[in-house]
């Protein structure tokens, strides 16, 4: 029998994978990918909670998260391409130009 915890653990594992990506990746595009992983893992958690609590709010949240991801990619990718055309790279270590 699959319980809520199963889903939550899977969501947590995916979240952690996404977090590894966020920390490990230096390529901006890959960072975006990792962000998508984070969002998706949270979506799983929301929908699982929604299912097991018999409550629709979780699904609504997931719905809005998908909408956010869509707008994120529209703006983020535009900026990314702009950056690439100007700097000819999307490597975080290279485009760093502020030093504390």
């Amino acid at each position, binding site marked *: 029998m699959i319980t809520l915890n199963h889903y939550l653990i899977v969501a947590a594992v995916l979240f952690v994978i996404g977090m590894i990506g966020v920390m490990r990746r230096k390529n901006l595009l890959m960072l975006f990918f990792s962000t998508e992983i984070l969002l998706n893992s949270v979506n799983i958690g929301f929908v699982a909670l929604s299912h097991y609590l018999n409550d629709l709010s979780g699904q609504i949240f997931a719905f809005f998260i998908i909408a956010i991801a869509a707008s994120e990619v529209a703006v983020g990718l535009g900026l990314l391409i702009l950056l690439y055309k100007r700097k000819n790279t999307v490597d*975080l270590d290279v485009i760093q130009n502020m030093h*504390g």
Partner: protein
Amino acid sequence: MENLLYTALFAPLVGSIFAGVLGGRSKMMIAGLVPSILLLVSLAASLVLLGHVLSTGTAVAVTMFDWINIGNFNVAFGFQVDQVTAVMICVVTVVSAMVHIYSIGYMDHDKGFNRFFSYLSLFVFSMMFLVMSDNFLGLFVGWEGVGVCSYLLVGFWYHKRSASWAANEAFIMNRVADLGMLLGIALIYWQLGTVKYDEVFANVDKLDMTVLLWITGLLFVGAMGKSAQFPLHTWLADAMEGPTPVSALIHAATMVTAGVYLVVRANELYAPVPEVGYFIACLGAFVAMFAASMALVNRDMKRIIAYSTLSQLGYMFVAAGLGAYWVALFHLMTHAFFKALLFLGAGNVMHAMHDELDPFKMGGLRKAMKGTFILMTLASVALAGIWPLAGFFSKDLILEVAFVEHHFILYTVLLLTAGLTAFYSFRLVALIFHGEERYKLFGIHPHEAYRFMLIAMSPLAILAVIAGFGFKGDYFAMVTQMLPATEYHVHSPVVYWTMVFGTQIFVGLAIAYAYIKYVKVKAFDPAIESNFFYKLLINQYYIPALYEKFITVPYAKLSRFAWKQIDQRIVDAIVDLIATSIYKLGEVSKRMHTGNLSTMLRLMTLGFVIVLVIALALQMMAK
């Protein structure tokens, strides 16, 4: 009727805004004309309102909108015109309208012409607001509004150090008094849960006596400030730094009488506590005498009139304190007319003499300024209380009140003061208009003021003449619908006529003495300066000096101590410490800001882990 009320109230505001918009420009005639015309409109509306109240005997009341609505505290933005208010608004609008028209001439050559009219109209609006409001809070707003306008107008020539000092003094002293008033209003609200007059007065009997004592006392403190009663009186004389129309309007006819108005308006609060009333009366009598004495020797024309105002306010407070509210209000009205007239006349003289204020440097202006001479003499006669002019009817009534109420000490004091009043009034008239033409020594060529200024003054003169016997009956009939209708009659005709004639003769003698003493005077006699009484009086009983020494200087020292020791050493140091520590923290954490997004993301994750640990810990604790 509501529309008329709004017209009367808001026409000055419109005028003020109109002139205010033009405030930055150089002189424009329209900036003076429009507020004046609007004030005439307001005057007309006020008169119609008065007629309405007179004929129907019912008050006009409106509620514009909910003003404050916080929890149980509900104050509506309401106005009413009842009998007392009707009298007040008519007095205010009549005097203001005349002063406005007069000012067009008086401020003719002033750079701040537009600004002046903006302030002046704003003052009228505030005063109307004060008078028409149907609750204590609205009254307080108007109260502060007139305070602000007084400040602005006294300090109108702000480049003059003395003017701005006087403005500050007036403002600060009024604030001290206003605190008392605010506390009084707060106390009313605390005790009764309302600030609306009707509701407050209907519930007076529910109040504890001690509380009522406190309320009335605190409200009177406010009235003392505004009406410049004894300990807070010094600002009024200094406020003469403002333009003369301002002195006429604010510091003679309207604003300073707001204190009297407050006591009259709140008569139902004062009625159950005659002790406070008696105190008010005593203070009033004292101030009447005290101010008159200072006016005796002063060498500043406007200050003399200002002290005279103070003295007359004392009269009003005597009447109000003794429960003769309608008498107080009556004297307020008559006084407004002739005092405004007197001030405006003084303004003419000042103009003619190129802002010279010392009457010893004038003399014989009778020929050069015939109109002004007649008007000022008329006003002085009215002020002195000679029958049949307005001053007689009101002032004599106050004397009668004191007599009838068996306060003979008060009566004596007031009688003496009446003599003093007559003396200094005619000392002034004699010095200015009669005798040798001393001004020639200073090479001044006096000239009469514009004709329209004199015409503007003439309604006041007519009112000063007829207000007494012309209006007394109607006024009594109307006002007593609201105020306690006590007829003060000395029952024995012998005593009555003795009193009347005695007073007239006494006053007449004083006038005569003043003439005899001052018509022939050639110059100021320095010998008198060594006289102890002269010194006492010219230094205003050393009260400003005492204030300076015992209040101002120690307070300045205290402030300096607080600034140097407390503020700089402790408060600033703490603030600086916070700033420097944050700055140091920034220096330390600067290393985190490498500009590398990857590093930042790692730090973010670290923070995330920390937050999670905290969350987990909280969960554990909650278990």
